[in-house]
């Protein structure tokens, strides 16, 4: 990261903290959604962008996390415990889902995870004794943490933002640890990684489990944020959207999920003038981008910066 890059990150952080003071409640809701989706997308970026394991199951993990919190908090379980439980449960399920990844790759893995997402959806819809089926669960309370009541939109936004900050720092740290390097090695050349003595088996499972637990954390915030969850919110569509976010932002780029989620949340609002057509525009934009710059928006920005720099150097060399 260059100094310029850090400056941009600091500016973005200041903007994220200041934003709710200038926004109406709906605006605060939107940026809270952005925070929650960013957390889920960071998890997917870890699995897909860094470890190279395509997953269409992230939406299902958001669902598992959301239902965990929505079911536990009415029983009197403190929010923090339910939050941790959501992450742990998703970690465990993600670990198990990682086993197919040991046997199959690429498109086969996409189909296995796709099947998993649909199975989770069916369970959430059909097991009414547990999940209340299509009627969903309403009124998951926003927590009081150590005397801080997060019932208001702005307070809850700051809770989400705090969680995002903690998880980003943890992910940043992990990616710079030997684990993170091992994940990249898995993506770049699994056979070479294996012959260098990396336990690729364990790291593949790890990549899945950690990515999934971030999905669970996102879900744990989603339930108290919207206060109404139902199976349809966590169907295949969400997994596709999260995948598109990671790709649009820039897969394998640490800040990709932040940008991708921002675009996915704001674009529908900006394109409101096009009425129902915004999804058409969005889908077309993704296709165009994949054709010209599969590295995503941030990849495009990096390319632009490189060009500018080379341009200025050349310009500087001439006189």
């Amino acid at each position, binding site marked *: 990261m260059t100094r310029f890059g850090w400056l941009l990150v600091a500016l973005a952080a200041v903007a994220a903290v200041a934003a709710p003071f200038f926004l109406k409640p709906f605006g605060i809701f939107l940026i809270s959604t952005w925070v929650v989706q960013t957390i889920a997308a960071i998890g997917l970026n870890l699995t897909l962008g860094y470890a190279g394991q395509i997953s269409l199951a992230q939406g299902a993990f958001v669902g598992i996390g959301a239902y965990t919190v929505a079911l536990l908090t009415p029983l009197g379980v403190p929010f923090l415990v339910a939050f941790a439980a959501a992450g742990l449960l998703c970690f465990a399920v993600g670990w198990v889902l990682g086993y197919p990844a040991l046997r199959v790759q690429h498109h086969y893995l996409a189909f296995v995870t796709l099947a998993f997402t649909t199975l989770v959806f*069916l369970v959430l819809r059909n097991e009414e004794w547990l999940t209340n089926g299509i009627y969903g669960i309403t009124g998951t309370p926003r927590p009081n943490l150590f005397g801080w009541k997060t019932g208001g939109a702005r307070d809850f936004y700051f809770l989400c933002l705090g969680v995002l900050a903690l998880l980003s720092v943890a992910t940043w740290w992990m990616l710079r640890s030997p684990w993170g390097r091992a994940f990249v090695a898995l993506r770049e050349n699994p056979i070479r990684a294996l012959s260098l003595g990396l336990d690729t088996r364990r790291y593949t499972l790890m990549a899945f489990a950690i990515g999934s637990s971030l999905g669970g954390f996102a879900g744990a915030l989603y339930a108290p944020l919207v206060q109404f969850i139902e199976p349809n919110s966590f169907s295949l569509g969400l997994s596709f959207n999260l995948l598109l976010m990671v790709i649009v932002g820039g897969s394998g780029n640490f800040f990709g999920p932040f940008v991708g989620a921002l675009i996915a949340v704001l674009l529908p609002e900006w394109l409101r003038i096009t009425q129902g*057509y915004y999804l058409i525009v969005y889908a077309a934009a993704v296709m165009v981008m994949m054709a010209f710059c599969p590295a995503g928006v941030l990849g495009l920005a990096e390319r632009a910066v490189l060009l500018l720099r080379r341009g200025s150097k050349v310009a500087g060399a001439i006189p």
Partner: protein
Amino acid sequence: MASFIQLLVSGLATGAIYALIAVGFTLLWQTSQTINFAQGEFVMLPAFFVLAAMNAGAPFWMAGLIGIALSILILGILFKVIIVDPMLKYGVLPLVISTIALSLFLKESAKDLYSSQAQPFPALVPAVDIHVFDAVVSTQSLAVLAVAIVTVVALNLLLNSTRVGRQMQATAQNPTLARILGVPVKRMVLYTFLLNAVLVAIASILISPIYLAKFTNGETLGIAAFIAAIIGGFNQVRGAILGGVILGVLDNLSAAYISSQYRGALPLIILIIVILLRPQGLLGRVEERSV
């Protein structure tokens, strides 16, 4: 027993349609490494072409031909030229993402440009119930089955008994060697895209009278096609046919005898088991991987 026969016939009819979709899917994969996540939407769309042509005053048979022609143009040629060709150099994954976006694009386009309501679609033959022993079988199921079988037989003849078909197979198995032997590989790849467009258009015309023409039809159909292709074997045309038939029959039988709520779950569980135990599919060959 009577209801079993009914379920079996309607299962075979659905399965035959799944088989058509799955065959197109595997053909694209074999010749151009395209995993078409929009395949379900490809089946949803031609029905709307047909309906639009009928709204413009064309009789059903002509509208059907117009639907197939538009399908060849848009889902065959344009899909290959605009989406697949520019993406191939990046490898499999970006193309997967692009076809996911395409499926969203087609679905929303059908919804916004035609209608979000399910549209009735004319059947091939008038619905008459035929009594076989004590089972009741509808002429619609039989007509679907007949058309699907004719299509599959014609496809097999094309692939195995004509020069073009054998060249297409050679391209699918080993493009480099095929090129050395003088097969016009590029044209063969284009032919598979056209073939896929014809197959999805036929499937669309067969399935729409049953499910009605609706913009969300593609979701279930696409997944059914993937599952059929994988169960049977991703790299075998006859595998895809077998997978489609198995899937259609199991789907109908499980809904009746096991649980209608979990109707959608059984194919997924079979999919996971097949992938874990026999990833090459029931009839597939193991693909050699280069390091």
